[in-house]
């Protein structure tokens, strides 16, 4: 049976097991002549218990089997090949195996001219078939054993409720670990590829170099084959644009949050809050062309009219638009925490003869600070990771500048340009993307740690 059929049948078996367990528990309880009031748990828990016993071991076996069977089948097929073929290099062997697999899956073995491959494909097919059969049988046998065992376990004093509780707890733990493990996996892979990159480009050059031009030639006889990978301009560009964006988003977001929570009446709030949040829902590509086609030319014209030299793609344009985009991150979170400051704080301050704005500045903002910092950092990491707006409005040239009127580029944009188009997978140019990704990751990580630290320190002080 193919794997989905196995799964569906298994589920059917579990449902069957559930009803069986339930019924059995009622029967067991009935035999004590006291009704089933002496059951430790509700009958449905016995049903769940049986289903769990039948399902979980079988599922685990199925998973393990599926994970390892294909490589075992492959190696068995290879060992059936003639000696001289086995002696080939790994890559070539892999190619041959691919061919054989395709042949076996296509069902056109008879058309193959090479008798060795034909034989191997048949061999492979046979092995696969046996494998599937064995898998099906083993899984169902285990499911049935589990079911029977669980049925025998059902007695009035069996603590089915606690068993189910434990299973649920472990399910939660596993789900949580999946998220964590995925993160770890991504970090590891980025780290590994970055290390590869650092074998061809020295970390010193990457971290402290001020020239970024990753164009390496494919043939060694081309000119300018080396490429230079100084990431400083990219990180400075990222910081510059994020700083511009935060300069817009923090004051505007915070003020609107304060207005919404402290001054606006219910009707205005009901209308304005969702409207503000829509800003976060606009696709970044829309912001991007807005920035490139409307804001950048506007800034350029404005700059020219007061005698400033503004590039047609400027960090300022990208930063401004990005700032608008991340306003809701600041305002929405801040608004929530400001509204959560207890009324008693306000009363206390008003009762001391403070005005509204004094109360806001001296009592409400300090009380809401952890949440506000959280919102700002969220907005900051959003700004650092933003790509589309920058691609469209800030340009691709890796200038090392802190003048927002010039074109700059950012880490994310360079990752995009490095990985778009046909690439060799192990050229420094491609691997540089991983190193950049690692850099971004570390930056946001540090940002988060700092934020947590601030918040914790604050909490300690005021809770």
């Amino acid at each position, binding site marked *: 049976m193919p794997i989905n059929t196995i799964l569906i049948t298994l589920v059917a078996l579990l449902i069957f097991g559930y009803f069986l367990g339930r019924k059995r528990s009622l029967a067991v309880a009935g035999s004590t002549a006291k009704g089933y009031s002496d059951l430790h748990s509700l009958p449905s828990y016995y049903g769940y218990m049986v289903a769990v016993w039948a399902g979980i071991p079988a599922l685990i076996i199925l998973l393990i089997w599926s994970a390892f069977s294909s490589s075992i089948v492959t190696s068995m097929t290879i060992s059936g090949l003639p000696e001289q073929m086995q002696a080939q290099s790994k890559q070539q062997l892999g190619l041959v195996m691919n061919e054989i697999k395709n042949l076996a899956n296509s069902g056109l073995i008879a058309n193959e001219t090479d008798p060795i491959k034909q034989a191997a494909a048949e061999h492979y097919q046979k092995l696969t078939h046996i494998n599937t059969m064995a898998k099906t049988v083993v899984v169902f046998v285990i499911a049935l054993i589990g079911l029977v065992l669980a049925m025998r376990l059902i007695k009035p004093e069996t603590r089915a409720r606690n068993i189910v509780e434990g299973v649920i707890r472990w399910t939660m733990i596993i789900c949580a670990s999946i998220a964590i493990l995925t993160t770890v996996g991504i970090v590891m892979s980025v780290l590994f590829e970055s290390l590869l990159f650092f074998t061809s480009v020295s970390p010193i050059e990457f971290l402290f170099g001020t020239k970024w031009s990753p164009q390496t030639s494919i043939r060694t006889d081309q000119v300018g084959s080396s490429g230079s990978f100084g990431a400083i301009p990219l990180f400075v560009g990222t910081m510059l644009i994020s700083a511009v964006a935060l300069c817009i988003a923090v004051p505007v977001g915070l003020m609107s949050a304060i207005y919404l929570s402290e001054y606006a*009446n219910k009707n205005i709030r009901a209308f304005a809050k969702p409207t503000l949040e829509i800003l976060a829902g606009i696709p970044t590509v829309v912001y991007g062309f807005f920035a490139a086609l409307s804001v950048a030319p506007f800034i350029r014209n404005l700059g020219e009219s007061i005698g400033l030299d503004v590039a047609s793609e400027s960090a300022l344009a990208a930063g401004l638009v990005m700032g608008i985009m991340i306003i809701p991150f600041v305002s929405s979170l801040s608004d929530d925490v400001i509204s959560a400051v*207890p009324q*008693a*704080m*306000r*009363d*206390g*301050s*008003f*009762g*001391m*003869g*403070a*005005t509204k704005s*004094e109360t806001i500045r*001296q*009592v409400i903002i*300090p*009380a809401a600070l952890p949440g506000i910092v959280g919102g700002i950092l969220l907005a900051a990491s959003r700004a650092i990771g933003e790509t589309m707006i920058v691609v469209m409005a800030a340009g691709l040239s890796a200038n090392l500048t802190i003048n927002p009127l010039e074109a700059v580029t950012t880490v994310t944009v360079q990752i995009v340009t490095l990985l778009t188009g046909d690439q060799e997978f192990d050229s420094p140019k491609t691997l540089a993307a991983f190193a950049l990704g690692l850099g971004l990751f570390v930056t946001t990580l540090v940002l988060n740690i700092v934020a947590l630290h601030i918040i914790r320190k604050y909490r300690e*002080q*005021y*809770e």
Partner: protein
Amino acid sequence: MNEILETLPGTTTQSLQSDEPKPEAKTRDEFDVEIDGTVGQPFVDNPKMSSRNCDVFYAEKQAIFDVNVDIGRNEIIAMIGPSGCGKSTYLRVLNRMNDTIPICRTTGTHTLDGEDIYAKDQDPVLLRARVGMVFQKPNPFPKSIYDNVAYGPRLHGLTSNRSELDDLVEASLTKAGLFKEVKDDLQKPGTGLSGGQQQRLCIARAIAVDPEVILMDEPTSALDPIATAIIEELMDDLKESYTIAIVTHSMQQAARVSQRTAYFHLGRLVEVNDTDKVFTNPEHQLTENYITGRFG
């Protein structure tokens, strides 16, 4: 005072176990007594604060009906009455805290030292510095103990340099009976204190701006008996320099700390009299019902 306490029902379980028939069965019409103006002596000579024809509305709903009362100088006046009868609302009239509730509307004439506090040119913010308030739940700001007490003086620019401010903070904490306990922890957060200490911190905060009147809305209802006793003692000291209006649900407390007692009922001021008189020989039937526990 002891005799009064003994006549009070709240402390003893007697009234719960007594063989008397349930009050409501017997005295339905006792509660339908007409409230026709305030009985007793609501007015005093040379009052610190006074209210005439006070009505308060929350949107359409009227919460206070025609209250007329004076608060004498350096006295503690207790305001008692069943829950929801408008004690807090009336108290908040006196420092215009009701202004912070958009739907709330206050009418009548209210004076502090003969000066109309609801006059057009009166700034409620300045008024609240003269009429301080302590709330039911201790609400120290999320700041250090020092900054909590210094909050008002800094707002109103009461001191010109740091050492004056230090002195003022120390003096206020001392008056509130808290200085000894916290003198080494002035920079620690005020929210880290115990409930009773927090409430005394709030009192210190209120007296730091040297108000003329202190309004207290159930200041001890969140505290244990020992913390309550400390604060009651404190109030006795404070009345030397301040006028205090206290809302309380504890009739023992009203009897212990106040000189005059005002009984509110369904938004009306039923009776104001000397505390001794209210608790031994109330003039109004409703007051008697309430203090003998035959209400609610």
